[in-house]
């Protein structure tokens, strides 16, 4: 089984990418109970911002090593500019409505943002391969991997660690847990719940944009980039349990390894396998592997 090494390495890289792309979705759902379809739009926005900013940076002849910071900055920029407008301008008026209605609102926003992206960046593809090639490559089992992938893995680990630390060990994190548990009671005790919603939504969208901008160097950035990411993130997050941070990590690892194994051994079933895992988990543990059951209310 000489393929086992590459299967594992591919799986880990893909898991890291999935985690970065999907963790924002579980964060937003956990705090706000919004299944955010615009997550895919932010992924695409991040990819476009990352690609065009890095392209401009390199064209000016600035230090190529700093292009990673530019990718990061692109994601920050997109999230800070677009997410607050959506949350303050529209979503906050919808919180009283049904979960499914809010989902439809974000779906409508997704349709709008798809075309906004086309209006801003046009329909031609963008390429910025330099950050991908810059670090050289390493070898596993006779296959070469760009070292850039290690940045993805590092980024995913840093995000997971950072989020867990903020939630468990800081004052803000503890307040956030209180808001998740009971928004009304938190409000009564003087927590600024609106601000938590705004910050969480922006942070969630930033994470999606980050996923997009760090993917930009590895693909050609074209319209419709975000559409696939939405269902894929849904699958990852649902497998782990909606709103659960360790769940998102576990979901990413499961989907990553399963996909990598199927690509290596049986490429015909790639998509089929991912969504079968999702359906199987839903069939046996509807609230996901880390989800908690909710009592039925009379």
């Amino acid at each position: 089984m000489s393929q086992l090494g590459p299967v594992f390495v591919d799986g880990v890289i893909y898991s890291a990418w999935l985690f970065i792309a999907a963790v924002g979705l579980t964060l937003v759902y956990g705090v706000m109970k919004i299944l955010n379809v615009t997550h895919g739009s932010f992924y695409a926005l991040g990819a476009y911002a990352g690609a065009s900013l890095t392209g401009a940076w390199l064209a000016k002849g600035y230090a190529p090593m700093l292009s990673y910071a530019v990718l990061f900055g692109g994601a920050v920029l997109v999230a800070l500019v677009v997410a607050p407008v959506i949350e303050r301008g529209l979503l906050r008026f919808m919180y009283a409505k049904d979960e499914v209605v809010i989902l439809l609102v974000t779906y409508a926003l997704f349709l709008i943002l798809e075309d906004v992206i086309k209006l801003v960046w046009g329909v031609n593809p963008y390429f910025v391969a330099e950050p991908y090639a810059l670090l050289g490559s390493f070898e596993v089992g006779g296959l070469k991997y760009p070292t850039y992938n290690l940045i993805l893995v590092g980024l995913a680990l840093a995000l997971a660690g950072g989020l867990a630390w903020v939630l468990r060990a800081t004052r803000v994190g503890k307040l956030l847990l209180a808001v998740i548990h009971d928004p009304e009671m938190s409000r009564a005790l003087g927590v600024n719940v609106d601000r938590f919603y705004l910050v969480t939504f922006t942070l969630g969208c930033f994470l999606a944009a980050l996923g997009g901008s760090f993917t930009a160097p590895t693909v050609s950035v074209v319209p419709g980039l975000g559409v696939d990411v939405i269902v894929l993130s849904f699958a990852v997050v649902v497998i782990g349990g909606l709103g659960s941070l360790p769940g998102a990590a576990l979901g990413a690892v499961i989907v990553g390894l399963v996909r990598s194994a199927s690509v290596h051994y049986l490429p015909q079933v790639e998509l089929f396998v991912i969504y079968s895992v999702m359906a199987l988990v839903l069939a046996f543990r509807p609230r996901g592997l880390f989800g908690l059951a909710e009592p039925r209310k009379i």
Partner: protein
Amino acid sequence: MKPDHTPAILATILAAVVVGGLALPQWALFILTIAWAQGLVVLGLSLLIRAGLVSFGQALFYCIGAYTAGGLARAFGIGDIFVQMVAGTVAAALVAFVLGFLLARYRGIFFGLLSLALSMIFYGLIVKSEALGSTDGFNLLPSALFGIRPAAAWVRYAVAVAATCAALGAALLVHRYLKTPLGQLAPAIKDNEIRVEYMGASVRYAIHVNYVIAAALAGAGGALTATTVGHIDPEMSYWTTSGEFVFIAILAGSGSVVAPFLGALIFGVIRTYAFEQSPYTWQMSMGIALLLAIVFLPDSLWSLFRRRKGA
């Protein structure tokens, strides 16, 4: 007792299509037929929505219906629109009967997500199957009616009339079904299903039945789309297709069996004009329309008619 106008409304629509269709250009007949096909799917979806269940995977049955019709045409050379629609309906209903045992246990967002996963599984399957044309799909023969293949100039008209008969027939059946005790259970399930169980009714059974009917209607719609467009591809099972159906269902509301068809027709017209006016921003127009509908018409388009009657 309130007089029931629905059969009269349906008959009027049929008469209008049969007579008015003669004067309509080919493209308008095409839009009309597609709207009826989507209306069938949305009619089924609205049965589930009445029970508080929003399926984000109705495209699964739409696609099964379409590929059943396509398979009949390809393997046996059957182009008869009614045979295709019946086959699509039966295939979708059978699949839904099996899946229903699982899905009838789910509520809220989990029902939506599981149905989404199932439609994506089907998408994943046909995208990779070369025998079915992978991502390209394949073409169908021109439609025939009762074994007669109409002349090219008349195909659109004949298909539109046949589609209208099928769609309105289905609407009438659903209208009857909604008056049965089982059909009237759905809003009660949405309000409080534990009380429904205390009354002695089985919630799971009611949801299962609604789910199968919804799937059957989606299968019919898929087969109708396949024969009208003359081409099918895996996109029909993708989540964006399901999103469109939910979009129309929300736009139309579940106030009447006529509403889904009206909603689908309005959707088709908006999309055609948005696409013609601004090919790059038609999605934006659709998104804005959906937002406006959610914000200003929380009780759907149909509430416009009802309010006027009440006033």
